[in-house]
C-alpha cells in the first residue's frame, strides 16, 4: 500500500480508526431504512410498465378499499410547477421537470416512472394495493437512443422543450454546447497521422448497495421532517420544498448513515412522497425502494455516442482534435454532457480544437450524477484514440501523454490556464511503477494504460468545533460521510488544535443544526468542508489563546498554541494544556466553540492514470483482469487508507463499466435487467488486488494542499482495458461494455485464435 509522506504533520497522513467504525461493524449504525417510529405506515410506489405513454386516468377506489390502506397520492396532489430553468437550492433546474419525475404528470416517460404512491399499515399490504390501482395508458412509441431522438421527425418526449438553435420547433435536444479554439483545418493539415473513430457507451448505474429510502413525518403545525440516506440533506430540503410547494424553513432533513451514493443520492425520489403521504395520513411514512425500482427509476448515468477525429505529427505532437458528444439525459434534460465536453481534452495541451456536446432526452430514467459524471464516457473515447496515435508514432503511450500533457499554465479547453496540477507526475508514477516495469508474458494477454481528469468542486460548507470541559473537542458539519470523511474532519481538527485524534469526535448533523453544507459530491468534502473545519478549528484556537491570555494577564498575541499546549511566548509562565484551560472556560468568558462557513475557492483539479493487465479467452471473449495499478494526485492525503479506498473503489467501478455493466432495454423500452443478477457489478472473484499510488502535488488553493480524491479514479479504466484488449488481440473495441458477446464477435470478425477460426468456418 502506498504510504503518504507525513511531512511536518502529527495527525494528517496517519491512519487512525474511523470514529463511526465500531457502530458499523456491530450493526448499530442507523441507515435510512433502519428508522422506525410509533404508528409508522409503509409506502410503495406504482410505476409505469410503459416507456412512453399518455396517462388517461388513474382509479384508486379498489386499492383504498383494501384493509390497511390509508392513502393514495398522484401528481394531482402536487402543485403545478413552472416550466422554466431556475435556481432551486444550489442547482439550476426546471421545477416542473423535477416534480414530473417524482410523480408523472399527464405522461409516463420511462419504464418505472412513478405514477402513484400508497401508504398502508404494512409494506406487503401497500404492495398488494398497487395491484388494485387502475391506470388507463395510451402507449406511445419509445425513443431509446440519442440517434433516434435526434432524427428529424422523431417522436417528441417533452412538447414544450426548445433549444436556442431550433427556435420554436419542438425537439429532444435540450442543449448544444461548443468549445472552439485555433484553426482546426490547419491543425489537421499539419498532422502526419489522423485517427477517426466512433464510440458507443451503455447507460450504467452507480450500483450503491443501499436502496433509496425515506421516512417522512408531517406535523399538525405544518413542520415536516425527513430521515433519509442522502449525499445532500440541504438539497433534499430545498428540492422537496420546491416539489411540495412549502417554504424551505418548514422542512428539516436528518441525514442517516448512507449506504453508498456515488452521485446517485444527490437528488430526490421518495423524500417528498414520504412527507406528502404523512401529511395525508397524519402518521410517519417510510418508503424504501426495491433493487428493481433503484435500477428502473433512480438516476443512472448517460449512455453516449462520441465521435473523435484527432491528429498528430510523426514525432508525437497532437496538432488538432475534434470531438462530438451526444449523451442520453433520460426523460428530462440534464445529462453530464457539459462535463464530458469539458473533460475530454483536459489532460492535453492542444492548440486547435472543436468540441460539440448535445444533451438529448430519451425514454429512460432521468440521469443523475455518477462519480466524475460524463468524464468516463469521454475518456473511453479519447484515451483509446490517444493510444492509437501513440502507436502510429511508435512512442510509448505514457511518454506520448507526457509529451502532450497539461501542466501549470496550459490553457484549458474551457479557457483559463491551469494552476499547479499533477498530470505529468501522475503519468510518471505509473511509468515508474513496479507494475508497468514488470514484463507481461503468456498468450492472449495485454497491458493497457489510460488517464483521466476531473474538476473537483468547491461550493458551500459550514463547520463548528466545540471545546468540551475536559479538553476534548467535537467537530460538527452537515456533509454526509460516504467514505470515511468524518475521520478526515476529526484529523484536521486534531492537527490544528494539537489534540490526539481520539480526543476529537466528528459528527454529521441535520439541516437545522448547522449552516448550509452543499452536497457530498464533486470530491468536495475533504476540500471544501475540510477548509471550513480547518478555519473553525483555527477560530477555536484563537479563542483558546485569548482565554489563556486572560488567565495570564497577557495579550492574546503573546500566547501561542503548540501541540495542544498554550505557551506564553516569553515563557514567563508554565505552559497550560487545553485540558487545563478547558476547565476554566466558564470563568474566562464561557464556552469556546469555533465556527466557519465558506463558499470554497481554489479548487484543485485531479488526474488519475491506470495500468491494467488482462487475459482474454479467445474462444468465449471473456476477459480476466490479472493486475491493476492506479495512480492519482490527491494533493494531500489526510487519511491515506481512505484515499487508497477511493482509488480502489473508483477503479473497481470503472472496471465493471468496462466489462459487463449495462442497461439492457427491449424494443418496447422495458428494462430487462432489473436486479443484481443481470446488472453485473464486479464480485470479489472478478477483481485482483488493486495497487494504488497516491501522488501528492499540493493544491495551492487549500490550506493543507487537499484536492479531493473521490471521483477521478473511475475515469481511466474502460479505456485502459480497451487498450489492453488491443495489445492482446490487435482489436480496437469501440463499444462499452466490452462483454464476452461483443468481444467474441469482434474476435470472430477479426479472425483470431485457431479454435475460433475453425468455429468461424462452420
Amino acid at each position: 500500500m502506498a504510504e503518504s509522506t507525513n511531512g511536518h504533520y502529527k495527525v494528517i497522513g496517519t491512519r487512525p480508526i474511523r470514529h463511526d467504525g465500531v457502530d458499523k461493524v456491530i450493526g448499530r449504525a442507523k441507515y435510512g431504512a433502519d428508522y422506525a417510529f410509533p404508528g409508522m405506515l409503509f409506502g410503495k410506489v406504482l410505476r409505469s410498465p410503459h416507456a412512453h405513454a399518455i396517462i388517461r386516468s388513474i382509479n384508486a377506489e379498489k386499492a383504498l378499499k383494501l384493509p390497511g390502506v390509508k392513502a393514495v397520492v398522484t401528481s394531482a396532489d402536487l402543485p403545478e410547477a413552472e416550466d422554466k430553468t431556475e435556481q432551486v437550492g444550489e442547482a439550476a433546474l426546471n421545477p416542473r421537470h423535477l416534480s414530473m419525475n417524482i410523480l408523472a404528470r399527464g405522461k409516463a416517460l420511462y419504464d418505472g416512472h412513478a405514477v402513484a404512491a400508497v401508504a398502508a399499515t404494512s409494506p406487503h399490504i401497500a404492495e398488494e394495493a398497487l395491484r388494485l390501482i387502475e391506470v388507463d395508458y395510451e402507449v406511445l412509441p419509445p425513443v431509446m437512443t440519442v440517434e433516434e431522438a435526434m432524427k428529424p421527425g422523431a417522436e417528441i418526449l417533452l412538447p414544450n422543450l426548445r433549444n436556442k438553435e431550433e427556435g420554436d420547433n419542438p425537439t429532444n435536444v435540450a442543449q448544444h454546447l461548443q468549445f472552439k479554439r485555433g484553426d482546426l483545418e490547419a491543425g489537421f493539415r499539419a498532422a502526419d497521422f489522423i485517427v477517426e473513430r466512433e464510440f458507443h457507451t451503455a447507460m450504467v448505474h452507480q450500483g450503491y448497495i443501499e436502496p433509496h429510502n425515506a421516512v417522512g413525518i408531517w406535523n399538525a403545525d405544518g413542520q415536516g421532517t425527513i430521515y433519509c440516506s442522502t449525499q445532500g440533506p440541504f438539497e433534499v430540503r430545498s428540492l422537496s420544498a420546491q416539489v411540495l410547494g412549502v417554504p424551505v424553513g418548514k422542512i428539516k432533513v436528518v441525514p442517516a448513515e448512507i449506504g453508498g451514493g456515488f452521485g446517485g443520492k444527490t437528488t430526490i425520489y421518495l423524500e417528498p412522497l414520504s412527507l406528502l403521504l404523512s401529511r395525508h395520513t397524519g402518521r410517519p411514512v417510510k418508503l424504501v425502494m426495491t433493487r428493481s425500482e433503484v435500477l428502473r427509476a433512480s438516476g443512472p448515468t448517460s449512455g453516449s455516442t462520441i465521435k473523435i477525429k484527432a491528429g498528430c505529427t510523426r514525432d508525437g505532437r497532437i496538432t488538432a482534435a475534434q470531438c462530438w458528444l451526444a449523451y442520453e439525459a433520460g426523460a428530462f434534460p440534464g445529462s453530464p454532457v457539459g462535463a464530458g465536453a469539458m473533460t475530454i481534452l483536459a489532460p492535453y495541451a492542444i492548440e486547435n480544437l472543436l468540441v460539440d456536446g448535445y444533451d438529448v432526452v430519451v425514454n429512460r430514467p432521468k440521469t443523475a450524477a455518477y462519480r466524475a459524471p460524463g468524464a468516463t464516457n469521454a475518456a473511453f473515447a479519447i484515451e483509446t484514440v490517444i493510444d492509437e496515435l501513440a502507436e502510429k508514432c511508435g512512442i510509448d503511450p505514457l511518454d506520448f501523454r507526457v509529451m502532450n500533457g497539461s501542466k501549470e499554465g496550459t490553457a484549458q479547453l474551457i479557457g483559463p490556464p491551469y494552476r499547479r496540477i499533477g498530470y505529468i507526475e501522475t503519468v510518471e508514477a505509473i511509468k515508474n511503477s513496479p507494475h508497468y516495469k514488470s514484463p507481461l508474458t503468456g498468450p492472449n494477454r495485454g497491458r493497457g494504460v489510460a488517464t483521466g481528469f476531473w474538476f473537483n468542486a468547491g461550493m458551500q460548507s459550514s463547520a463548528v468545533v466545540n471545546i468540551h470541559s475536559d479538553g476534548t473537542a467535537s467537530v460538527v458539519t452537515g456533509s454526509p460521510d460516504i467514505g470515511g470523511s468524518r475521520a478526515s474532519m476529526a484529523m484536521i481538527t486534531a492537527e490544528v488544535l494539537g489534540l490526539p485524534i481520539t480526543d476529537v469526535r466528528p459528527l454529521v448533523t441535520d439541516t437545522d443544526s448547522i449552516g448550509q453544507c452543499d452536497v457530498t459530491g464533486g470530491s468536495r468534502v475533504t476540500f471544501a468542508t475540510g477548509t471550513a473545519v480547518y478555519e473553525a478549528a483555527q477560530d477555536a484556537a484563537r479563542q483558546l489563546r485569548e482565554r489563556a491570555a486572560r488567565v495570564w494577564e497577557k495579550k492574546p498575541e503573546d500566547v501561542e498554541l503548540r501541540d495542544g499546549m498554550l505557551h506564553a511566548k516569553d515563557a514567563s509562565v508554565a505552559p497550560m494544556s487545553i485540558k487545563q484551560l478547558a476547565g476554566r472556560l466558564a470563568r474566562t468568558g464561557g464556552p469556546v466553540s469555533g465556527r466557519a462557513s465558506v463558499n470554497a475557492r481554489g479548487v484543485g483539479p485531479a488526474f488519475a492514470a491506470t495500468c491494467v493487465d488482462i487475459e482474454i479467452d479467445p474462444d468465449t471473449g471473456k476477459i480476466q483482469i490479472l493486475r491493476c495499478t492506479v495512480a492519482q494526485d490527491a494533493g494531500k492525503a489526510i487519511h491515506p487508507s481512505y484515499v487508497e479506498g477511493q482509488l480502489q473503489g473508483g477503479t473497481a467501478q470503472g472496471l465493471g463499466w468496462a466489462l459487463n455493466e449495462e442497461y439492457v432495454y427491449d424494443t418496447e423500452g422495458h428494462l430487462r435487467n432489473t436486479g443484481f443478477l443481470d446488472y453485473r457489478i464486479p464480485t470479489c472473484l472478478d477483481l485482483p488486488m488493486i495497487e494504488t499510488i497516491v501522488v501528492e502535488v499540493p493544491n495551492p488553493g487549500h490550506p493543507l494542499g487537499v484536492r479531493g480524491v473521490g471521483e477521478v479514479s473511475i475515469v481511466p479504466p474502460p479505456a485502459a482495458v480497451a487498450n489492453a484488449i488491443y495489445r492482446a488481440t490487435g482489436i480496437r473495441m469501440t463499444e462499452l461494455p466490452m462483454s464476452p458477446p461483443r468481444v467474441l464477435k469482434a474476435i470472430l470478425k477479426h479472425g483470431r485464435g485457431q479454435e475460433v477460426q475453425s468455429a468461424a468456418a462452420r
Partner: protein
Amino acid sequence: MATVIIPSLLRKLTGGRERVDVVAKNIREVVADLERQFPGFAAHLLDDGDIKGSIAVSIDGEMGTGGVLDRVRPDSEIYFLPAIGGGR
C-alpha cells in the same frame, strides 16, 4: 481594460469576435458593458438580475462564487462557462 472571452455559440452576437474588452469593476458591470456593446447579450447571462445557475464565471482562472458581485481587476480575463455541478 478587462477582457471577456466569448463562448463560441454566443459569438454570433459579437460578430464572431472571441475577445471583447470591457470597462468594469465587477461582473455586474462586465455584463452591463457587454449589453451596451451588443444589445441582447445580457439576456443570455442573467436571470432575475444575477448570473444564471446554468452558467459559471471564471475570473483569472478562479471560479467565481459571488455571481454579479465578484470583483474584476482592470487586467482580468473573464470566461462564461456552462456550470458543472461537482459530482451531480
